[in-house]
């Protein structure tokens, strides 16, 4: 064991190997957070679409979920990064590959460009959206049918019923699964290393390749993953308790 290795100067980025790990963690979190916002937004729209009385909206929602759920994440990563620029109009594809990277230089010793980052976020976000959509749908469908009827009987329109009755309750049910969806993105973000995003897993492998201290490098990354996972679980438990409706939804925690 040689843990001092992390304090040695790394060959690039003007930092130590520990700096590489922090950089990797930063980009893991950045990709995960952006992808989660995208997943939450798109997933909510798709999930709600699957519960509306509109047949075409339901069909589109179902098609979305089936498409993104039945192709491996890694293959989707390659579709966004390698295939997408080639099948859209050539000027757009060239812009993605050549001009987008020059829009800004990514901070924190990124060693990759805005285009790789964008492709990773798109892939992880839209993939996870299919899972979020299923959670939102089942959350809405778990509510008693009488709720919608009661809302309509009061003279509310259907969008108003969703806005004021269905969704506020459904999202309280959906929040615990959302925690695990964030953790899923957080772990899945390591697939971005295949398109050159140097996130935490990639950095730990890079350190092992430069120093041959594989055990130390992997252990460090593993510990970071565990700490973040536990932190997220604790934070979300607190949040769940805050939003729990008294006397309803036992899994809201805090008895």
């Amino acid at each position, binding site marked *: 064991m040689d843990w001092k290795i992390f304090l040695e100067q790394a060959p690039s980025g003007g930092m130590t190997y520990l700096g590489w790990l922090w950089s990797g963690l930063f980009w893991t979190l950045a990709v995960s957070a952006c992808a989660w916002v995208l997943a939450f937004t798109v997933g909510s729209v798709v999930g709600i679409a699957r519960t509306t009385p509109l047949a075409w909206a339901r069909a589109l929602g179902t098609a979305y979920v089936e498409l993104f759920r039945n*192709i491996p994440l*890694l293959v989707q990563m*390659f579709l966004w990064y390698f*295939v997408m620029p*080639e099948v859209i109009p*050539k000027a757009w594809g060239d812009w993605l590959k050549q001009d987008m990277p020059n829009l800004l230089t990514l901070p924190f010793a990124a060693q990759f460009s805005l285009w790789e980052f964008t492709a990773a976020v798109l892939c992880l976000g839209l993939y996870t959206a299919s899972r979020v959509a299923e959670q939102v749908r089942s959350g809405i469908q778990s509510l008693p049918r009488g709720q919608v009827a009661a809302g309509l009987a009061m003279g509310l329109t259907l969008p108003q019923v969703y806005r004021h009755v269905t969704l506020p309750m459904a999202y309280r049910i959906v929040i615990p699964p959302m925690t695990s969806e964030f953790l899923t993105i957080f772990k899945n973000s390591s697939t971005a290393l*295949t398109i050159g995003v140097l996130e935490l*897993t990639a950095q730990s492998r890079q350190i092992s390749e430069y120093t041959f201290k594989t055990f130390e490098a992997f252990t460090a990354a593993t510990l970071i993953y*565990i700490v973040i996972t536990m932190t997220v679980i604790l934070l979300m438990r607190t949040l769940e308790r805050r939003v729990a409706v008294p006397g309803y939804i036992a899994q809201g925690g805090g008895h």
Partner: protein
Amino acid sequence: MGGEFDWTVIWKYREALWDGMLTSLKLFAIALAGGIFFGTLLALARLSSWKALSLPAAGFVNLIRAIPFIMAIFWFYFLTPMIVSKFTGQQGEAVGPFTSAVVAFIMVESAYYSEIIRAGIQSIPRGQPAAAYALGMTYWQSMGHIVLPQAFRNMLPVMLTQAVILFQDTSLVYVVALKDFLGAASKAGQLTGRIVELYLFVAVVFFILCFAASWGVKRLQARLAVAR
């Protein structure tokens, strides 16, 4: 649209792609069988009242579930040859990348399956094993004849859904340069410069297989729901 496509490349590389698919399927089958077998043992260990069994099992499962699948693959890719050479005295080369990948997948899947199976075992009313014990059965007889058959039946749809996910996850061996279906397509793409066609083909094949399997699981679930 950007450029013209040349789909003949898929026919030209059909043998390599087929070999890759066979590798994927082999990895899938071994990981599935191993994952369910060791997952069952892990679940039993976690439910044991004996702390020396339940704590390490819980630790292993939670550890594996907290790290990315790729990180776990890297770990076992690194550890397996080391451990094997320690036992056999041979150098690391004795263990090929496929064996390391198999070990990694069995380990990761056993952690995921153990959670499913544990939930399945806990869904069986406590009176069932009690009745088995009252008839003079041992722990293993009660598990083998009474609890596990019912648990597996309850959990069948979830276990099959997890199998579809596992099949998709086999593509992750790409990161250790094993030539599975995706790896074979990737290689052919590098040789011909036709990655667009090849990756689209891979996506379509995976979609058809997984969509059909998911649909089958849904049908089965509906039938089980009626039977109950």
